[in-house]
């Protein structure tokens, strides 16, 4: 029977699980994001560098193809921590741009249209809401970071064989954990910016500026006081230091170590979460 003839009847059948409900908002948001041409173009462009890296891995593992070029070239064709560090740094730029495009539209519209009471009057807590919104960015950013990173690692392990894998498994773990740390931090910055800044363009610019402003401030402190410890508060450096440690790359002795940087990044994420939780309330209470 046609819907308009049937009339309204209460729904009395079974309900979906909590996990399924949590994925509803990300599903709707991904649908909306992927209908934007700019996001699609960014996703396509961000695949160029991983494709080049894949070609590089192929060449590195097929020495017969460049035998004529002489032995000196061998050092340029080694797949190690340095190779994956360069790959991760390049991909992190795409991820940051994607976050600045997709992030501002996540929370600001809900706040502007007073939609939070509608969400929070349903079986969805504030934590669930934040996690749902975060899943949107984690899913999107992992497409340009973790997924190609792990595919490259798998490709190298597949071509180079089991021996290489057992000697270098930590590189796979470093790609996964390092990128996860990065996209969680970037997602929290983008969400907080979306929650506090109403205008989409300004919020997007703020996501990009956040990293540059803190980097500038840290360098200024270092120069004025002739110290190096302020680099800890530069998120770009802090992430690089943690990645370097995990990828077994040396960090200069006078610079802050990976442990301090990891502590700063965790504290930063905690602070951003607290700011988000403070802003996201079903009702504004005037005390």
């Amino acid at each position, binding site marked *: 029977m046609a*819907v308009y003839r049937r009339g309204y009847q*209460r729904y009395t059948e079974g*309900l979906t699980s909590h996990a399924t*409900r949590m994925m509803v*908002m990300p599903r709707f948001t991904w649908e909306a994001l992927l209908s934007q041409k700019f996001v699609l173009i960014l996703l396509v462009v961000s695949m160029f560098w991983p494709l080049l890296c894949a070609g590089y891995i192929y060449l590195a593992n097929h020495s017969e193809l460049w035998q004529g070029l002489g032995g000196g070239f061998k050092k340029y064709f080694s797949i190690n921590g340095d190779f994956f560090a360069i790959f991760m740094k390049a991909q992190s730029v795409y991820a940051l741009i994607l976050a600045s495009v997709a992030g501002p539209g996540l929370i600001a519209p809900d706040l502007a249209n007073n939609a939070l009471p509608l*969400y929070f009057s349903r079986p969805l*807590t504030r934590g669930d809401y934040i996690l749902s919104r975060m899943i949107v960015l984690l899913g999107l950013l992992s497409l340009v970071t973790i997924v190609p990173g792990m595919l490259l690692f798998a490709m190298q392990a597949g071509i180079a064989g089991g021996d290489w894998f057992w000697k270098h498994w930590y590189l796979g773990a470093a790609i996964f954990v390092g990128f996860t740390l990065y996209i969680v931090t970037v997602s929290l910055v983008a969400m907080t910016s979306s929650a506090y800044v109403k205008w989409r363009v300004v919020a997007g610019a703020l996501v990009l500026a956040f990293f540059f402003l803190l980097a500038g401030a840290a360098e200024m402190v270092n120069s004025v006081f002739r110290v190096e410890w302020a680099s800890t508060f530069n998120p770009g450096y802090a992430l690089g230091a943690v990645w370097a440690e995990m990828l077994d790359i040396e960090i200069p002795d006078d610079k802050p170590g990976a442990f301090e940087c990891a502590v700063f990044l965790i504290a930063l994420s905690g602070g951003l979460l607290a700011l988000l939780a403070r802003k996201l309330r079903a009702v504004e209470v005037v*005390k």
Partner: protein
Amino acid sequence: MSPVIEVDSLRVKLGRREILQGISCRLGVSGAGKAIGLLGPNGAGKSTLIQTLLGFHKPFAGRARILGFDCYSQAREVKARIGYMPENDSFIGNMTAVAFLRLMAEISGLPKAAALEKAHEVLFHVGLGESRYRQIGTYSLGMKQMAKLAQAIVHGPELVILDEPTNGLDPAARLRMIQLIKEMKEQHGMNVLLCSHLLTDVEQVCDEVVILKDGKIVHQADLEAERKSNRRFVQLDVIGDDRNLANALREAGAEGVSETQGQWRIVLPADVEIGSLWRLASRERLQIRKLTHRKDTLEEIFLKAVGHIRQTPRETPTEVPHGRL
């Protein structure tokens, strides 16, 4: 039968201010499809009570339960059973009404296919069928109100909390909204908690009413019982010599008071039929011009509860002697 809403010594503080000051009540009957009116002057604590029932505020003391579940510690169970229509504009930008309702239904736990079906069904039900593919941002105020109602009932909740549902509606849309709320309780068995400043709306829809003032319950009434009792209270206008009417009424077992020439207020005992008044008037050679069931309006009950009048008109005759005033 368990109550729909059970509030026990509930105290809610927002900052340093105590908004709800130890209120207790049991409202509605689970599964009975009753409507409860929540009334009170501005700042009485109505919205705070609703928000506490929705689990938005943690009680400072006491507890609030909906359908047997604690509103704060068992918020997930409570929220799975209720629908909420907020007072202010609440929607999701850049979404069509169908997409908006499908999202709301899926978050409430409906599977994808069922959510889509119910979204269409409920939009036709509230009269937005033809404009269901328009973005909600382009809707008029009345249409937005209907869309808000639709999202509150799309998942078929047991209790629907409506905060000022007729705000900003033109008379025709207001009547449509009232009709929909009546259908919700009478045809679909939903319980309704209606918070409104428009007493006529509450009077038309609700079976029970709670009046709040300064964070306390100052009156709780069963409007259904009130309506039944009011049926025995009659206002009679007659033409002719009515000097013997008081005695005739007393002989018939009723009591009457003449207010002015030809205007009578009569209390009929349960065993005296209203038809006997016609026979009595005929015997006394009186022509009946008007016979109405006089009742206290909700407005009168409300004004008395909040202290603006000392007694309702119905309470007046009990204080005057029988006979001509």
